[in-house]
């Protein structure tokens, strides 16, 4: 973890109080969204593989506070918080996790494969490293078309060990692409710690041989993340130059909701959650500065609870995707001799023994 001394913030004098309260609200929304998602999984409303952003609330909200609407975001499969943080309403996100037709990917993707084109959220990617080269290409396209904005290539710490990461660093530098390589360093790739998987555990240094500037930041401090992202984002855009931000946080639970996390010492996890809880720490900070009081906290918690319950109700009330649509969207154009709705229905009737 980042040393305490690096993260002490002495003054909130220059901050807008409403904005600070909004960060807290967003962080709590993410926190509760993920906790309730875990519950829905246990209730078998959600199935398959599902990864939570618990412990990464400040990382996400800080990043989102720094980004502009023209920016683009590519993430890994641990993506719920990014979509929420970018402003997609919770209902369609929860519906996607439930596999419903009202979900952000029409129920086709599920937890790991969220999209929101309108908000430039370019997808969660379940193949580790899959998103990284794409982000470079998207940034090149921005430059090529002389459009403003940067592209965020979000990834986990362990993703910095896969070849595609290095190929992307190289190209981003060669092509002068405004990419923010945003490494969510939660200490683990599944059961493998950073030190076990990476010969250079200081991940921000990994751009050195590509001449890419890198920094490390405490990912549990929303303001520190925001400030670093703002600065690096603006630099990347202004100079058309890629940058690396190594954002350190603590993974609250197992790798996914079904991971028992047996490879981590329970005491280590307990202590980590206690010391590095971004939501609680931020509440304490705001409290100390008299920016919030107990009544506000209570009202905010109630509001968040209500919004998420609404999202769950929305997902529950939504219908499953239509079987007729199984073959829809295979190609972006009409293609002759491809199966259509009737074929999908026929296949399902047979599956159900209705023929």
């Amino acid at each position, binding site marked *: 973890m980042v040393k305490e001394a690096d993260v002490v913030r002495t003054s909130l004098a220059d901050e807008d109080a409403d904005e600070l309260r909004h960060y807290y609200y967003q962080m709590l929304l993410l926190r509760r969204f993920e906790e309730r998602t875990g519950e829905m999984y246990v209730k078998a409303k959600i199935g398959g593989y599902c990864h939570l952003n618990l412990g990464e609330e400040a990382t996400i909200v800080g990043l989102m506070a720094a980004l502009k609407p023209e920016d683009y975001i590519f993430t890994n499969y641990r993506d719920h918080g990014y979509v929420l943080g970018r402003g997609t309403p919770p209902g369609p996100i929860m519906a996607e996790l439930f596999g419903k037709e009202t979900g952000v990917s029409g129920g086709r993707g599920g937890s790991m494969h969220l999209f929101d084109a309108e908000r430039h959220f370019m997808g969660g990617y379940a193949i580790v490293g899959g998103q990284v080269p794409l982000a470079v290409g998207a940034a090149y396209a921005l430059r090529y078309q002389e459009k403003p904005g940067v592209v965020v290539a979000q990834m986990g710490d362990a993703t910095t060990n896969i070849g595609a990461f290095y190929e992307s660093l190289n190209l981003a530098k060669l092509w002068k692409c405004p990419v923010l390589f945003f490494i969510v360093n939660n200490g683990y790739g599944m059961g493998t710690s950073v030190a076990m998987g990476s010969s250079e555990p200081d991940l921000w240094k990994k751009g050195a041989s590509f001449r890419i500037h890198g920094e490390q930041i405490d990912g549990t401090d929303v303001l520190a993340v925001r400030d670093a992202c703002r600065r690096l984002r603006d630099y990347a855009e202004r100079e058309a130059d890629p940058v690396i931000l190594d954002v350190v946080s603590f993974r609250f639970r197992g790798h996914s909701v079904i991971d028992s996390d047996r490879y981590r010492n329970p005491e280590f996890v307990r202590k980590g959650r206690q010391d590095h809880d971004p939501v609680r720490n931020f509440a304490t900070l705001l409290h100390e500065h008299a920016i919030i009081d107990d009544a506000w906290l209570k009202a905010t918690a109630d509001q968040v609870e209500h919004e998420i319950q609404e999202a769950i109700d929305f997902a529950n009330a939504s219908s499953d995707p239509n079987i007729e649509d199984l073959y829809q969207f*295979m190609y972006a154009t009409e293609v002759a001799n491809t199966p259509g709705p009737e074929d999908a229905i026929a296949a399902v009737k047979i599956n159900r023994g209705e023929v």
Partner: protein
Amino acid sequence: MPEINLLEAIRQGLDEMMAQDERIFIFGEDVGRRGGVFRVTEGLIDKYGPLRVLDSPLAESVIVGACIGAAMNDTRPIAEIQFADFIAPAFNQIVQEAARIHYRSNGDWSVPMVIRAPYGGGIHGALYHSQSIEAFFAHVPGLKVVAPATPYDAKGLLKSAIEDNNPVLFLEHKKTYRLIKGQVPEHDYRVPIGPAEIKRPGEDLSVFAYGLMIHYCLEAAQSLAASGVSVEVVDLRTLRPLDVPTILASSRRTGKVLIVHEDNLTGGFGGEIAALIAEHAFEHLDAPIVRLGGPDVPAMPFARSLEDAFMPNPQKIAEAMRRLAAY
């Protein structure tokens, strides 16, 4: 004979081979302390230590590539690809390097390694945790591709694969891991790579399949028996080298052929079997060869309704059998 599930059979196979042969080591993501995501390698690190059960960085290309180099240098590595879907970064190493080294070194070097890869759907894993990849690799001469359906075959074939002097892609259907149980002898045995096995003899039509689909085909065949249709179910077990004589003999005997796989149809492995039968057993056929596969969509969709529509199941297979029998 004790009854165990397929996952346990593979673990036993790994364990017994490692106990016998110090050249064997396992390399893959979280195979050590965590015991693999499916817990196939659970306990092996305690028994054989971290030099023989190695947690890899998240880098499939180097998992396979390093195993190739080690295999060329008198060891017998077993690479684990956590999900078959993640094999794509290693495609280059498997297809360009592992498969071709013996041939292009004029027999000087060989690559005695196994690549284990859990594949297949029906577990709600969505697009990138459900794929069937056999067709890509069965296309490649120099590789062997194995896809067992039962605990007995899995253990016996795994041992043969480890002893084989060639690169063997060992495909484990993840839905069979805990679902499929069977008797496995306590003594040391092998199932040879190559031969198919008739899992259920029959007269009226032949069905060729492998992996999970074998169990669905057996269930479907059972349901047709009541109406007097006798179905032969042939478990291919090995896709490369393919047991062509068994396939042709069964096809000639029954005169009707159904081929089933979960992988999508177009360019799937079933096409190869159909072509072989059409070429070599044409005069014996009483009906067109029928293939049943997953629909040609880019990947397994997440929603359960769509996944159900994707997966071949016993009802769907039974329906295809019925139609073929009535032809």
